[in-house]
């Protein structure tokens, strides 16, 4: 079995406002193996981005905090790491790319200087060597005329090019883990495919493990080995991409898959899950999805379902599958 690079256990990250604590990430568990691409899927506001920022140690300190759980990178506990150690890990061991490539680059510095900064932060090399390495990285991510590009500014580049620069910057120090937070959302569809291809190549060539955070199931199907579906701060289902797409168990996952438009069948109306993602912290007990779930019964509103893992590694957090006694479940189905 391949080694686990990253292991997240019962991660809890909260934001604090005058009204009280808002749990954005509420007990998340997952792991990432060497060379694997894991997708984390969910609607906006479900805690995907906060999960990734927690791993990076970049949760905004003014009002946010990792309040519990553990994040282990090659066995090393990151939630207890010093600020200095986290700086060594960020960029060098775990790197991240973001949703808005244009605004993620500093507008007043050249592409080259920003790339070289990433390189020289973790490697003691001269400016000339760093410049050479920067050009090399730009070539690696498929950017033409890299030697001119390093003298240009972000505003002179397109969104797709900026995202390639961001990827070059992220992989420049050969990180073991690359976290991509909706890297293609802000880009044109054709550019999206190119960026996904690029990430797949980097995964194969550099053996970088990737966490792909997205709300787009198409991206998951295209790129990922395994997928975790997140809803309102919790992971509700997890399994290999094939299993999740072919035999989804959680009503939320089923809803997500149904809401993908299919070009082969013309429908009058696209399926959508009724209601909205609840505001974090508003659900005090029961399954977080209960109020939007077609199959919800009494227990769902009272108790939080546990994650149940079947033999093939397919895990689901739903009373319809597992823990509860079959008869109770059947009775409720009949009643409703």
């Amino acid at each position: 079995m391949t080694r686990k690079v990253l292991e997240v256990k019962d991660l809890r990250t909260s934001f604090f406002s005058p009204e009280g604590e808002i749990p954005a990430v509420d007990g998340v568990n997952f792991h990432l193996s060497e060379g694997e691409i894991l997708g984390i899927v969910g609607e906006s506001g479900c805690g995907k981005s906060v999960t990734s920022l927690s791993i990076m140690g970049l949760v905004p300190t003014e009002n946010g905090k990792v309040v519990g759980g553990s994040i282990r990178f090659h066995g090393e506990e990151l939630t207890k790491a010093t600020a200095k150690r986290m700086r060594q890990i960020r960029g060098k061991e775990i790197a991240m790319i973001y949703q808005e490539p244009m605004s993620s680059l500093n507008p007043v510095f050249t592409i080259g200087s920003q790339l070289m900064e990433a390189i020289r932060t973790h490697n003691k090399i001269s400016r000339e060597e760093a410049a050479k390495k920067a050009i090399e990285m730009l070539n690696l991510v498929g950017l033409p005329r890299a030697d001119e590009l390093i003298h240009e500014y972000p505003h002179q580049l397109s969104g797709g090019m900026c995202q390639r620069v961001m990827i070059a910057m992220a992989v420049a120090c050969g990180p073991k883990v690359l976290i991509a937070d909706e890297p293609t959302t802000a880009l044109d569809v054709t550019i999206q495919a190119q960026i996904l291809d690029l990430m797949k190549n980097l995964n194969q060539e550099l053996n970088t493990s990737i966490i792909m955070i997205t709300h787009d199931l198409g991206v998951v199907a295209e790129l990922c080995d395994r997928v975790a579906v997140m809803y309102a701060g919790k992971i509700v289902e997890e399994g290999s991409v094939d299993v999740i797409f072919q035999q989804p168990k959680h009503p939320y996952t089923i809803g997500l898959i149904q809401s993908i438009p299919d070009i082969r069948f013309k429908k009058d109306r696209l399926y959508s899950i009724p209601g909205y993602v609840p505001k974090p912290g508003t659900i005090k007990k029961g399954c977080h999805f209960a109020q939007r779930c077609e199959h919800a019964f009494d227990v769902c509103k009272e108790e939080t379902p546990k994650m149940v893992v079947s033999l093939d590694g397919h895990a689901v957090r739903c009373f319809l599958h597992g823990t509860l006694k079959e008869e109770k479940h059947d009775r409720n189905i009949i009643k409703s």
Partner: protein
Amino acid sequence: MTYVVRRFLLLVVTLIFISVITFLVFQILPGDPVRTMLGPDADEAQVETLKQQLGLDQPGHVQYLHLVEGFFQGDMGDSIRFSRPVTGLIMERLPITLSLAVISLIIVILVTIPLGIFSAKREKKWSDFFLSSFTQLGMAVPTFFVGMVLILFIGMSFQFFTTGGYVPWSESITGAIGSLILPALTIALPQIAISFRYVRNAILEQSKLDYVRTARGKGVSEAIVIYKHVLRNSLIPVVTVFGLILAEVIAGTIVVEQVFSLPGIGRLLITAVSYRDFPVVQGIVLYIALVVVVINFIVDILYAVLDPRIRLKS
């Protein structure tokens, strides 16, 4: 480069406008300078002769062209009160006002940037609140009072400071600094209060942007994140404020010059106005306009230096 050319053209056009307006204002202004010069007893013939001498009998546009020509030759006419060239009078006082402006700007920059960063990093904490209230106080206290307090408590206690009069740089460098530092501080104090808020807000606004997260994500130290990435972007709006401060001080700080008995531009202006010394007033107005326009031009150039988006926009 077109940006610089455009800004320069703007500078020229502004100067032309200002010179026309200044000229017209002095045409319309009540009170005949010639009669003021000659006193109430002068007869018509004397008045006419002097008008001819000063070129005031010629049509308006000729007078204006004469003014512009003189301006470029450094000849702004003679002062009525001092009977000396206006240019000489201004030039004499320029080093004082200029030194005052530069020293107070340096004080403002040295204080507000670290203070703004400090305050922004402690947003909504007590220290931030305290600093903001304290600087409010700095804005509210009138300069003459600050000046007097400084003279009383610092100037009188330490030999180094001169509390009145000016020691030229050529005579003694320490003496010059000693005579200028307290007035510069007096000028700087309310300016610190104003620009501190600009710096704080600019830093605060910038540090919430995405590129800051990227910088942190690279693993660089917090000092680099703030002083390199955030500060460089925050300086773009802040430079405007510093430019305004500099222009304001160079244009003359009448009250402070009066309190510290410094013979600067501001005091010259007061004297000139009270004696209806029109050539001097006109000269100073043009000088102030020139200074403001040139500083704005420099600020525009600084924008381009700081922000490649401005520099490279063709």
